[in-house]
Every structure is written in structure tokens, then in C-alpha cells.
């Protein structure tokens, strides 16, 4: 019995020790950001590098590190070198908060993240408590930037839905009968869907069929496709992620149904899906702020470096993240941010800076980006069409 007791005690001690142990390793960091002697700015990133949304997180991680390397090689921000660390959140809010805490222990002073909406909202509750500057590259839900310390690079869900409807109404597609298939179990998809439907109503577009699925039944879309086809839709609006979209494209091809597809930024990445016949994606419209085939120097530089590093063409998430680092650089330089400031002071300065800054020469906007006080970017959307396996700017 004694032995068993000893074993139990050992287990308890070990489990506590292990927990505390992970706390004591690495550099001892204080939340106050007092490590001023070292002139490095510590930027943390959070996003899914495993799980269903892994392609977004990994692209963001790699894009940030490219931007950080460039800036460091060119002398840093105000002479400060950037130190950068990225944590995985598995596209799960609970894990995302864990990742945030872990980065805080590491000494993070500014946050780029989280990549996906739900986790981003959860993290923003924490960053608000700490008054830490948060810039999400791609958290599209409205609530992602509900606090004044949070800003985003991408469009919000309602913006995307409304902009899509506006684009369709303005162009050659306005007389098409519209069918919609969306994912009613994600906030991303429902957010875009709802704003698209209400804007389409205002603009007098005809929606003939509105179908939904949930994340648990996201493998067979035959029923939805049949309803949409039966209703005579010749434009299919897909405000969903590319994994489901690739299946929809395959299945509707098998059915012999060939509408015009219209996607939003979640569709970005469809050309990278393994074993997907990219010829099916020919002629797909998508509203994305970034086009990897654009001819300007900035895009070319980024795409080449990204391909060298990862072997594939970056998607819009990567471009948002790359921009995020340069946005931080510009605002930090304007505001004279130094590494020895407390996190909270740094955040206050950055907030003030974001409200006035105008960023030009970025990947994710054809013109410039400015921000409103509630953290939303003002920029122009770009529609692209997939032609010969690459994005081409649509008229």
C-alpha cells in the first residue's frame, strides 16, 4: 500500500511539476515588457497550422516570417530588430487563448492574429484586458475588432457579402438567376450570406434558391446542387471555404450542372487542393483583395520569396499577413515606438497611429488602406477570374 501511495504522490507531483515546468523554461518574461535593454520588438502570431483550416495558418506564418526577415535585413523598425514567434491554435477558440497566453509568457509585445474568426474573437477579449495591440490579418467576423485595440487587414463578413452583391449588380452578371449554397454552421459563411441576401434584395437581384449545409455534412452536396439546379440558377454564390467549394465543383461537374461560380476570399486556395482537377475551377469568379499574378514589383517580390520558401503560390491570407507586418512597421515608425515601452503604452500609440495612417503600396488593396476608429479597413475589393489555373483581374 505504501508503495502505491508513493506512486500516487509521485504522479501528483509530476503532473504539477510538469505544468509548472513548462512555465519556467525559456527566457523569463515579464508582462510589463521591461526587457528594454535588448532592442528587439517581439511580435507574436496565432493561427491554425494543424486541423481543417491549416492552409491559412501556415500561409500566414510563412508570410509573416518573410516580411520580418526583409525588415530585419533592412535595419528593422526604428533600428529595432523584430523577433517573431507563431503558435498553433487548431482553429479552436479555447486553444487560441492558450496560444495567446503562451506568447505572452514569451514576451510578446504586439499580436498578429488570430487568423480565423471564432478564435480571433476569443483572443480579443484577452488582448483587451492586457491592452495589447492586435492586428488580425484575416479575422473577418464583425466582433473580431469590437474592441479599440483590435484592427484588421481584410474585409469584414458583411463588407464581403455586400461588396459581392454590388459587384454582381454592377457588371455583366446582374441578370443571372442566383443560387446560394452556404455553411450554416460557421459564423464566417452565415455572416457573408446574410449581408449578401439583404444587399441583393436592395439592388434588385434575383435569388432563386438558397441552400445550406453544416460542417458535419460537408462531403455530399448533391441534394443542395439538385435544388439549385432545379430552381434554374445560372450563377452559384458560394460564400464558403475552398475545401467544400472544391467538392461542390467536382460534384456539380459530375451532375453536368455548369453555372457560373462566384466565391469570396474563403475560395482562395482552391487551386492548391490536393487531387483537385483545377480545370474545374476555370471561370470561377472570386472577390479577393489579392492576386498572385499581379504585375507590380511588390507582388512579384512577395510571390517569388513565398514560393522559394514553401513551394506554392501564396493565397490572400498570406498577403494580408505580409501587409500586417508592414502596417505595424509604418505605424510604429510614425509613432516612435521603442521596445522598452510598456505593452499598454505601445498599444495606445499604435491605436492613435492607426486612426491617422494611410498605407499605400500594399498587396491587398489596389490603392491605399486607411482605418476607421472601430478598426475596419477602407480599401477597394478586387474581383478575379480563374483562367488557365491562375487568377486574372476581372473587369
Amino acid at each position: 500500500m505504501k508503495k502505491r501511495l508513493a506512486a500516487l504522490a509521485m504522479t501528483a507531483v509530476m503532473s504539477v511539476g510538469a505544468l509548472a515546468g513548462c512555465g519556467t523554461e525559456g527566457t523569463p518574461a515579464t508582462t510589463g515588457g521591461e526587457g528594454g535593454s535588448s532592442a528587439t520588438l517581439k511580435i507574436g502570431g496565432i493561427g491554425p497550422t494543424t486541423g481543417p483550416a491549416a492552409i491559412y495558418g501556415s500561409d500566414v506564418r510563412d508570410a509573416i516570417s518573410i516580411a520580418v526577415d526583409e525588415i530585419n535585413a533592412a535595419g528593422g523598425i526604428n533600428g529595432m530588430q523584430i523577433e517573431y514567434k507563431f503558435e498553433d491554435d487548431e482553429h479552436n477558440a479555447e486553444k487560441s487563448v492558450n496560444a495567446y497566453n503562451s506568447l505572452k509568457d514569451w514576451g510578446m509585445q504586439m499580436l498578429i492574429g488570430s487568423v480565423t474568426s471564432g478564435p480571433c474573437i476569443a483572443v480579443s477579449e484577452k488582448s483587451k484586458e492586457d491592452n495589447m495591440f492586435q492586428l488580425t490579418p484575416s479575422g473577418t467576423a464583425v466582433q473580431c475588432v469590437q474592441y479599440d485595440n483590435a484592427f484588421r487587414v481584410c474585409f469584414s463578413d458583411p463588407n464581403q457579402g455586400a461588396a459581392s452583391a454590388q459587384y454582381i449588380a454592377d457588371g455583366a452578371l446582374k441578370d443571372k438567376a442566383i443560387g446560394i449554397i452556404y455553411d450554416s454552421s460557421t459564423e464566417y459563411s452565415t455572416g457573408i450570406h446574410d449581408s449578401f441576401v439583404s444587399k441583393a434584395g436592395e439592388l434588385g437581384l434575383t435569388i432563386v434558391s438558397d441552400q445550406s449545409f453544416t460542417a458535419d455534412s460537408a462531403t455530399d452536396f448533391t441534394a443542395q446542387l439538385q435544388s439549385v439546379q432545379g430552381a434554374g440558377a445560372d450563377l452559384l454564390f458560394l460564400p464558403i471555404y475552398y475545401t467544400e467549394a472544391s467538392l461542390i465543383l467536382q460534384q456539380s461537374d459530375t451532375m453536368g450542372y455548369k453555372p457560373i461560380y462566384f466565391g469570396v476570399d474563403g475560395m482562395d486556395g482552391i487551386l492548391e487542393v490536393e487531387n483537385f482537377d483545377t480545370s474545374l475551377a476555370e471561370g470561377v469568379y472570386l472577390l479577393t483583395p489579392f492576386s498572385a499574378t499581379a504585375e507590380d514589383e511588390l507582388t512579384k517580390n512577395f510571390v517569388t520569396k513565398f514560393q522559394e520558401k514553401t513551394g506554392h503560390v501564396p493565397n490572400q491570407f498570406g498577403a494580408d499577413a505580409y501587409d500586417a507586418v508592414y502596417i505595424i512597421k509604418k505605424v510604429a515608425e510614425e509613432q516612435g515606438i521603442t521596445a522598452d515601452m510598456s505593452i499598454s503604452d505601445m498599444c495606445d500609440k499604435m491605436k492613435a497611429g492607426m486612426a491617422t495612417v494611410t498605407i499605400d503600396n500594399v498587396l491587398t488593396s489596389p490603392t491605399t488602406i486607411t482605418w476607421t476608429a472601430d478598426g475596419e479597413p477602407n480599401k477597394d475589393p478586387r474581383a478575379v477570374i480563374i483562367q488557365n489555373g491562375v487568377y486574372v483581374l476581372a473587369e
Partner: protein
Amino acid sequence: MGKLKKTTKQELITCGIVVLFYIVITILDKTGNLKSHTKGLLVPICYYATAAVSLNLVVGFLGDLSLGHAGFMCVGAFSSALFSVAMKESTMPAGLRFFIALLIGTAVAALFGFLIGIPVLRLNGDYLAIVTLAFGEIIKNILAAIYLGKDEAGVHISLKSFPLQGEGKMLINGAMGIQGVPTDSKFLIAMLVLLITLLVIYHMVNSRTGRAIMSIRDNRIAAESIGIDITKYKMLAFTVSAAIAGTVGVLFAHNTSTLTAASTYFGYNVSIMILVYVVLGGIGSIRGSVIAAALLYALPEMLRGLGNLSNYRMLIYSVILIAVMLWNWAPAARAWRERVFKSKNKQKQES
């Protein structure tokens, strides 16, 4: 004082470990040796341990495989979060509000456990597992589709989104769930919930009721023949288990500020994860469930500290899981362990 009963001793040891854990963590916290990452893990560890203990009641003591545990968590989470969000503006003190939220979550989950138990507990074995799985998914999917809003015209509930008139507020916003849940879950409260759960389960198992429940597990026909009301005891165990899962849901909902009925949080994967805690800790071993849940939840998080290797942390986690499962339960590993440890014991006795 006479010798303690064996069962009492077991109970004291388990509660002792939990209290010791609390004390050590508190000391570390007060002396400033606790990192915020570790601090963030404490509440989840407590509620997953609680969930594992409550599932053990059904799986380990009643002997039925239930795969719908996350569904009950979901019910508890949503009912309590709804209450908390609705009362957030009122003058009710946060402590009282959370206490009532805990009661509501537990009660609603117990009600659902009871209602679902009526049809489900007529089944056995695999059939029961499948039906509980289905109920768990149904609950989650319904909650992910509900829109509930309050405006000038009153309270609206619908399965489609609708506009609010005038000053109004969406309480449950479909797939976007409930936003702005007050983060009331504190380590102390989660710890108390775990302790109370342990006491309830230990006392239940070691009572007349518990012996009746275990007799159903061991031999249903024999139990029936001596006049044990099978339905009653099955219902009791299932409802208690569901109620505690509801409490876990309350702690979950009030730990992060947003609550969505997504598969990541309440899908069957979560039910299975809790089942893994139970199986790994030892079916029917309450203490094992607590320790397994704590270690397995913390493990992938601890692997973040591996530097470059942390890219492979989910892979490492899976491999460790397989290794531990084999070590604990593979007949060959058990036989080997027995041989090695027995021979050591012998050596000790000889020397």
C-alpha cells in the same frame, strides 16, 4: 479511531490529490512562478476532469457506452450562457449570477438527460452508443441553427435569421452562437465543482444505489432476478452523469467569452476525447479519470515549449497516446509489467 474503510480511503486520496494540486498551484501563483499560459490551462483541466469523472459513472459503473456527453455539455453551456448574457446588465452581483447559471445549466442538462434516457436506455451496448451519439449531434445542430432575439415587440425565436425592430439584441445568433458571455469561470470555482463531483460520485458508487448500478453492469439478469429496478437505476446514473456534464458546460461557456455550437467544442470528437480520458485512466477508476484528463489536456499544450519540434506537437501527442494506451492495456505489456515488477518485489523481500 478505527481503521478507515477501504472505499473511504480511496476517496480521501483522490480528493487529497486534487486539493494538493490546488494548493501547489496557488502557492506557485502567489509567489509569481506561474506563467499565464499555465494559468489559462487550469480551468479547462478542471472541467475536463469533471467531465471524465461523470462519464465514468455511465461507462465504468453502469457499463453502458455513451457517446453523447458533449451534447449535454452543449445544453448546459447554452442555457447558462443565455441566462448570464440576459442578466449581464442587471444589478445582480457576478458571484450570485454565476451560481444561478451553474444551477440552471445543471438542471437543464439533467432534464435533457432524463428525457433522452427514456428512449435510449431501452437499448444496450453498441445500439446505445450509436443513439447517444445521434442525440449529441442533434442537440448541437439544433443549437447551431437557433436564432433568439429580444426587441420592442418581444422575444422572437426562429430557425432563420430575422431583423430586429428598434432597440433589440440577438441573444443566440445562429451559428455565431452567444457573444459576450461574462468570463466568470475561475480556477477556485472549477476546483470546487470538481471536488463536489468527486464526492457525489464516490458516495453514489459506494452506496446501496451504486451497488445496484454495478450489479446491472455485472449481470443484468441476476440483478433483475433479485428485484433491482433496472430502468430506475439506469435512469438515475444517466441523469446524474448528464447533469454533471451540464455543469461542465457552464464552466466551459463562462471560460471564453464566445460560445458557438461548433463541432470543435461539442461534436462527437469531444465526446470521444472525454471517453479517451476515461479509458486511459481506467474504466471504473475515478482517480484515473481525473489524472488522465489533466495530463492529456495539458500534454499538447506543454509540447508548445519544444521549440522547432513544436510543429510536430499534435503528432507527438498522438504517438504518446498510442504508447500509453498500449502500456496500460495491451495484454503483452501488462504481462511484462507484472513479471518485471513482481520480480523486483521478490528481490526486495529476499534482501
